């Protein structure tokens, strides 16, 4: 699904940019609408960090390249820890983390949340269970709870349906519920669409999907009484979520190129890029 969304997002972004480029003048000549023409910036922005942000960074870099062709933005998917380390020792302009910075890390880094990634827990529409806690979801995932009657539902065996090893959604789910490498799946499917289809056709099924992919054919349960929606993910009340963070060296100015990329990423006008990548933009 990660790939699928990217495959959808990139052409969409490119189309949008191509369309907007149709009306643009060649750079250098004065714009007819009186806007000052922007000097073409050049340089390289090094970003490094969370592998989960690959899709988001892909969309951002693609969109940014069309705007500032002179700036090369590189992205190395090394993991949140390495990204934070790289930002604090200066080997990357911007560190990428799919978790909040720890207090120790905040001494020399500033945390900017650019987006939030919510994982919806979906069940079959016929399932009477409306509300689960994170602990209950984790127990289901570990195979400790095996029947919906233990959770106040019908006497139906639970089928826990998830994604294949390596999937970002699976990584996020297991990390956020504390079930890493302990999940007992009854199906491992290769796309979010397949998970949703399987959940919608299996009465006892429970699965997970990124918030943006949830459809009406399945029911997203409340977690601790909070429904999964963009609003609850943004205000932090929905529990199974994680922030996508830009870690920026504190007390040190970003290079012009890096600042331009940062401004682009933080610009509410570009929020659509995050949505296309399947996450909730922090600055809608």
């Amino acid at each position, binding site marked *: 699904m990660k790939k699928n969304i990217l495959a959808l997002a990139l052409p969409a972004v490119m189309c949008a940019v191509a369309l907007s480029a149709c009306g643009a003048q060649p750079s250098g000549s004065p714009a007819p609408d009186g806007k000052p023409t922007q000097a073409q910036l050049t340089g390289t922005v090094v970003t490094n960090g969370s592998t989960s942000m690959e899709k988001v960074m892909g969309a951002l870099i693609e969109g940014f390249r069309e705007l500032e062709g002179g700036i090369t933005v590189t992205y190395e998917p090394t993991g949140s820890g390495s990204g934070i380390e790289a930002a604090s020792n200066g080997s990357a302009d911007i560190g990428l983390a799919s978790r909040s910075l720890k207090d120790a890390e905040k001494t020399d880094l500033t945390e900017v949340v650019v987006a939030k990634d919510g994982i919806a827990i979906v069940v079959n529409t016929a399932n009477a269970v409306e509300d689960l806690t994170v602990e209950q979801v984790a127990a289901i995932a570990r195979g400790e709870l095996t029947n919906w009657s233990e959770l106040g539902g019908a006497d139906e065996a639970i*089928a826990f349906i998830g994604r294949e090893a*390596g999937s970002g959604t699976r990584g996020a789910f297991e990390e956020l519920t504390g079930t890493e490498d302990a999940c007992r799946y*009854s*199906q491992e499917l*290769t796309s979010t669409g*397949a998970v949703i289809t*399987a959940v919608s*056709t*299996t009465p006892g099924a429970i699965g997970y999907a990124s918030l943006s992919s949830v459809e009406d054919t399945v029911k997203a349960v409340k977690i601790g009484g909070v429904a999964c929606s963009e609003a609850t993910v943004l205000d932090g009340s929905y529990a199974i979520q994680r922030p996508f963070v830009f870690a920026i060296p504190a007390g040190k100015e970003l290079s012009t190129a890096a600042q331009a990329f940062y401004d682009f990423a933080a610009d509410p006008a570009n929020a659509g890029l995050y949505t296309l990548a399947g996450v909730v933009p922090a600055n809608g």
Partner: protein
Amino acid sequence: MDALEAKYAAAKRYSETAMGLVFLLCGVLAVAFVLLISAYLILSGLPAIREVGLLDFLFGPVWAPTHKTEPQFGILPFILTSVYGTAGAVAVGVPVGFLTAMFLSKLAPRRLAAVVRTAVDLLSGIPSVVYGLVGMTVLVPAVRRVFRLPSGATLLAAILVLSVMILPSIISVSETALNAVPREYEEASLALGATETETWFRVSAPAASSGIAAAVVLGIGRAIGEAMAIMMVAGNVANMPGLFKSVRFLTTAIASEMSYAGVGSLQRSALYSIALVLFLFIMLINVILNLWFKNKREG
């Protein structure tokens, strides 16, 4: 006149040689692809086997390539699933296919046989993703209901899909074999007082046995190499095989993890190693098939 004729003959010779070269090139191309793929698989499949250890790789019962602390690369569940799944498909598909062939060859009125034959040909032309789709939306829920399982995506569902998929090749090869049985054998049997059913099963079938065996091997080859259809119905969890368990085949193990395995990671090279194992399996089946045909021709 002579000069002209000589020129004409020379031109003819050149065009013959040129065409001969084109044919040779096309022939060599196929061989080159086989060699290229073999070499590529061996080169990219061996490093992971060397790193994991051949025995641990082939007979390790746990596949957990992305485990944070101790990743494990045992493909025994995949090998057994592929073997069981193929055996199951053959167990279901061969009797049905053989009896269909018998019906087509001996019993069916000509018009009906033509209809059945067309249907069988169509069955062989259906893309495997369509088998998977129908299996996922119809068969998997049915298996779940009939056997009261939490989820119908099981080895059983995969076996059923595979057995339908191997039917066409089994039917057409066995039918050809049955048709080739000399009429005199059957007439002699009937003249001795055997019933038609007795004749078909005791005379025609044994006479066609090598062809039927070839059909079975062909079916095995198709079943073991199938990925798309069973990926959609088998559930893809790396369990040890069980009829009502979600399982992962050699083929689906490669297909389901390839898109996320990091370039250069041990996980990725282990997937190439699985491909190598699968490749050897299929080579083995091809060798058996070829030996069979050779024996048949010589015997």
